[in-house]
């Protein structure tokens, strides 16, 4: 295929998603099991302590479906209350965090179905079928983006809008896997699909993000990152 010219010196940075997510130590599992037993036995105040490490995960699981901060917060609250009510049904076959995030996804989907019924909207007709000829964005001079640039609201909004624009199937998997860094097996368990389906959706989601963002980041770089210069005066790009 004919490739556009690519300037020299493309760089890459360490990807957190590459690092295998460590399984929780036995101590975390044992601590949670102990808390759960006490809560079920009546010490309900301890539920605050049990869910505190996962309150962010619950919010963003809901957000991956709903895309709306207020609905996501309401759903996160409903998730926590539902988890408290049903804690006696929790079995240690899955991690507590996986169980909690699964409830959040299901609650968010139920809310979305309800809203669509009210508004007579159709659901995304996206399937898992991948057309074999998806083309990434042509970029000619990509360079590493300094993470300090995230201090700029404009960049954060660009990233958030790109994720919000993804079809639901792809948005869910991208947020679970690449924002929350949940491993493939747990992501599959949460979404109720096979690991193969997670990988397929993730490929599509990541390439969609690349296609949407790479040209925008390249075209807006002078506005977004003009303040950031390499040592020696050269531009980052």
């Amino acid at each position: 295929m004919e490739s556009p010219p690519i300037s020299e010196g493309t760089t890459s940075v360490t990807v957190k998603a590459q690092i295998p997510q460590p399984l929780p130590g036995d101590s975390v599992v044992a601590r949670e099991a102990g808390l759960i037993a006490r809560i079920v036995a009546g010490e309900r105040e301890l539920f605050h302590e049990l869910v505190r490490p996962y309150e962010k995960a619950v919010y963003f699981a809901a957000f991956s479906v709903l895309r709306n901060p207020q609905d996501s917060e309401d759903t996160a609250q409903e998730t926590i209350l539902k988890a408290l009510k049903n804690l006696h049904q929790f079995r240690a076959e899955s991690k507590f965090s996986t169980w909690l995030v699964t409830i959040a996804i299901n609650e968010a989907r139920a809310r979305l179905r309800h809203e669509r019924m009210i508004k007579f909207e159709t659901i995304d007709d996206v399937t898992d079928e991948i057309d074999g000829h998806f083309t990434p964005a042509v970029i000619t001079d990509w360079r590493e983006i300094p993470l300090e640039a995230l201090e700029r609201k404009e960049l954060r909004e660009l990233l958030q809008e790109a994720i919000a624009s993804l079809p639901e199937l792809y948005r869910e998997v991208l947020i679970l896997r690449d924002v929350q860094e949940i491993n493939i097996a747990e992501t599959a368990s949460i979404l109720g699909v096979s690991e193969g389906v997670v990988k397929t959706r993730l490929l599509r989601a990541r390439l969609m993000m690349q296609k949407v963002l790479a040209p925008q980041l390249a075209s807006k770089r002078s506005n977004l990152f003009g303040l950031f210069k390499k040592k020696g005066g050269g531009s980052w790009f």
Partner: protein
Amino acid sequence: MVLNCQHVWAEISNYIDDTVTPELREAVEQHLAHCRHCAAVLDSTRNILVLIADDRTFELPVGYSARLHARLQEEIDESQR
């Protein structure tokens, strides 16, 4: 194993996650060594993943945690009446 660009794009996500076989990894790397287009696609995809994984990209609404635990406490109090 010789891969073309589309084969590499189809494997780019698994390559980033390091879930490809050693043989496939080697084939992808051989292709990347000679195709600057695919190397740039890989770099840009990786860099975008770094940006979206950063805690600053997605922040919780201000007061979210306090409201969540206040609502939870209401529920606990109600159930103990």
